[in-house]
């Protein structure tokens, strides 16, 4: 909710290439979404996981236990600060939103990506310590280099099944059950908002981003 486009994005490039920008309702950083991205979201009532306090770190720690079951140590998987990493390279970024009786923990997994797209992102001013000022090319890695996509998806479903009873629901059934009163908080930024972000950029930031 506090993220500013001018601090997170190379806005001129984003506008030039007409990249859609979505502001999420949840916390966390900025991610590139492409055809390879895998999203996993846990939307839970506050009592869904017995004994789990509905705060960022407990939820984050619980999620890492679930993914421990998926990777079984492969690739030196771990939760590092708030990222999923293989060794010291990030492959999964997390975001959460916690309300009175529910929480969501969602992850965008870097299955495969075009490094060119990463140039739309600035190195964030608020970065985890383990990043050690590395640029995107050295900081992130592709999951496809470690395991097949189907193995990750099936492994995640299996791990979720050890925590919850699972029921498969077709996507169109989810869409048709959406409440007509539901107003999503996530939204696309307008061209005007992105252009205003360029206008708001002070000289010092401009020179750093070049």
């Amino acid at each position, binding site marked *: 909710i506090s993220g500013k486009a001018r601090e997170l994005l190379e806005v001129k490039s984003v506008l030039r290439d007409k990249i859609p920008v979505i502001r999420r*309702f949840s916390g966390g950083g900025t991610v590139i979404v492409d055809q390879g991205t895998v999203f996993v979201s846990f939307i839970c009532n506050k009592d869904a996981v017995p004994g789990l306090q509905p705060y960022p770190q407990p939820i984050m720690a619980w999620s890492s236990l679930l993914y421990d079951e998926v990777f079984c140590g492969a690739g030196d998987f771990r939760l590092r600060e708030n990222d999923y990493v293989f060794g010291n390279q990030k492959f999964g970024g997390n*975001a959460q939103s*916690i309300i*009175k009786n529910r929480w969501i923990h969602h992850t965008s997994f870097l299955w495969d990506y075009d490094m060119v797209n990463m140039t739309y992102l600035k190195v964030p001013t608020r970065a985890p310590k383990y990043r050690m000022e590395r640029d995107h090319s050295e900081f992130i890695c592709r999951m496809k280099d470690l395991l097949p996509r189907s193995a990750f998806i099936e492994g995640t479903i299996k791990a979720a099944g050890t925590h919850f009873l699972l029921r498969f629901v077709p996507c169109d059934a989810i869409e048709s059950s959406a409440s007509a009163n539901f107003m999503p908080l996530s939204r696309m930024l307008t061209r005007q908002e992105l252009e205003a972000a360029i206008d708001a950029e002070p000289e010092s930031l401009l020179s750093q981003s070049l």
Partner: protein
Amino acid sequence: MALRLWASRAASQLRSSLHLRGYATVIQDLKYTDSHEWVKVEGNSATIGITDHAQDHLGDVVYVELPEEGTAVSQGSAFGAVESVKATSDVNSPVSGTVTHVNRELDGSPAL
């Protein structure tokens, strides 16, 4: 009821009047919700914050979204949010009323 929204550290500043009770720290004159907001009612106005327990568990707070003065709030409903590194967390009002003041120091010092 007129509401003042204050930094949660106000709770710790009142510790001189604490009555320690087992492992819980309960400050006299404060009421608490089960979602870890506190409220101090004085006449027709109330001051609201989040507890040290909540703030400790939220981690590094990077931004606090506060309502505009004059906003009506309802008991139990969210009126603002606290953003930590990876999460946004709603702050719920323990009472119903109208916001008269917010702690603008949180704009520059969200971890206050």
